[in-house]
């Protein structure tokens, strides 16, 4: 009995076009759509708020009405699969890209990806970063075989748009004035939370390809050709910069 009613209730919550279950009434015995709509509104508003909390820069970029429209469409198609709402909205960046209304703002999806990475970094496991001294202690003949272990919060994102500059502008009081000065190129981001604050830094293309290779499990020996003779920094310069971000928590097993 309750199984059937709950199924009807759930279906009516998900689809405003579905009739309210006949077993539901107000105390006068009448089915009140407006009363049932309190639940529909609670579900939508709660999930839209959750998305707005995870994607504050996207929210600011498109404005409240526009954001709520996209978010409402998303919540109608995708509900959370468990009660931990910080995990809700992983597919929102891709979903933004499918919405006709967002074609004039093609960078939105990538800004959303950056915000999702920030969210994951914020809640990731805590770990104390290693200093580059860990590398200096390794025997010379083994250095080429060493891989680096990344902080649980570390994420890398590459975009054809200046997403880090857009994100950083929104950490200031007057993002609009800064948005007028965006670089005319794509940006690569390293997101990491070495302690209590999530840091987002821009990587040049050479540093990005090097760090990405290490992040994907390559050894220093395998990844180092990506930086040798590719710019002002040498290998040790790139490694020092990487360890400085706090993104490295140790070395892979030396074999």
């Amino acid at each position: 009995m309750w199984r059937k009613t709950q199924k009807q209730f759930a279906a009516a919550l998900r689809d405003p076009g579905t009739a309210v279950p006949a077993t539901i009434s107000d105390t006068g015995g009448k089915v009140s759509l407006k009363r049932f709509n309190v639940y529909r509104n609670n579900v939508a508003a709660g999930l839209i708020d959750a998305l707005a909390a995870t994607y504050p820069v996207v929210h600011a970029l498109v404005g409240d009405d526009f954001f709520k429209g996209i978010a409402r469409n998303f919540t109608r198609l995708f509900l959370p699969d468990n009660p931990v709402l910080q995990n809700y909205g992983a597919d929102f960046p891709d979903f933004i890209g499918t919405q006709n209304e967002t074609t004039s703002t093609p960078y939105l999806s990538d800004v959303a990806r950056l915000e999702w990475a920030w969210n994951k970094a914020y809640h990731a496991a805590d770990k104390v970063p290693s200093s580059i001294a860990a590398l200096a202690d390794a025997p010379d003949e083994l250095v080429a075989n060493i891989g680096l272990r990344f902080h649980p919060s570390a994420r890398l994102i590459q975009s054809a748009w200046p997403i880090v500059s857009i994100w950083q502008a929104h950490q200031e009081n007057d993002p609009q004035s800064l948005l007028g000065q965006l670089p005319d190129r794509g940006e690569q981001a390293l997101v990491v939370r070495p302690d209590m604050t999530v840091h987002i830094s821009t990587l040049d293309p050479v540093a990005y390809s090097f760090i990405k290779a290490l992040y994907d499990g390559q050894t220093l020996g395998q990844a180092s050709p990506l930086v040798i003779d590719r710019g002002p920094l040498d290998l040790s310069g790139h490694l020092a910069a990487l360890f400085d971000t706090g993104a490295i928590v140790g070395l892979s097993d030396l074999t």
Partner: protein
Amino acid sequence: MAGAGTTIPSRAGVGLKACHYHDILGDKPDIGWFEVHAENFMGAGGPPHAYLSTIRASYPLSLHGVGLSIGGIEDLDLDHLDRLKALVDRYQPALFSEHLAWSSHRTAFFNDLLAVPYTDETLDLVCAHVDQVQSHLNCKMLLENPATYVVFETSTYDEVDYLSEIARRTGCGLLLDVNNVYVSCINHGRDAADYIDRFPAAAVGEIHLAGHGEDRDDEGERLLIDSHDRPVIDPVWELYGRTLARTGAQPTLIEWDNNIPEWSELFAQAHLANSVMTRTLQNCRSPHVA
């Protein structure tokens, strides 16, 4: 866990919100305890756990779940029970509470506290779920009365009788949300004072107070919305006093989850609750406990 008490004092506490962390750590306010929504602390690490650990070291804590779907027809989510167990083990809360409501259906979590019909079928179901929670978490839980906007024609129990029976069968305590009583009674044309007078006072382990919004239904009848976005109104303070006269002093939470005010305003609501508690208990020195 060190410090901070293994019981919740019978005075006012408030819901802990991230925007108040710095006020709390800076001012060390004289507040009885804090309550958190368990689901907001289910990440692996980061600032939420760091702040909660620091605040927990100085204040008693109550853990309030909003996602177990205890009234749902389906089995409880064992992964979610494990997440709750991990939080209970880590933070040693003095109270754990959840709702007489459902929020999940199959793979979908609706993120709302949805109404349950009060029948023999659901009574067995809810009692089995409460038993399972208490056994999994190895502690007594409190079950909260819901704010409801609809009723079911299939219901055969009055809400107070239903909750009383759950407490009797499972040994769980009850979290009496006085604002929910007011909201539901206005919405369904019932007498809130009568609800309070019939509530099983001996089972009450905590009280919730909050503000609510007001609308009209399709028939033009008052429709109150449990919005937790404003101060507690006078009729709810009056019901609170009526409750205390029966239950004696109780841990009392000010819930304010939306349009969250400055810390000072939230703190002032807690003060108000303490004043009502002091005044009520002075007026009836030997509370009649049913």
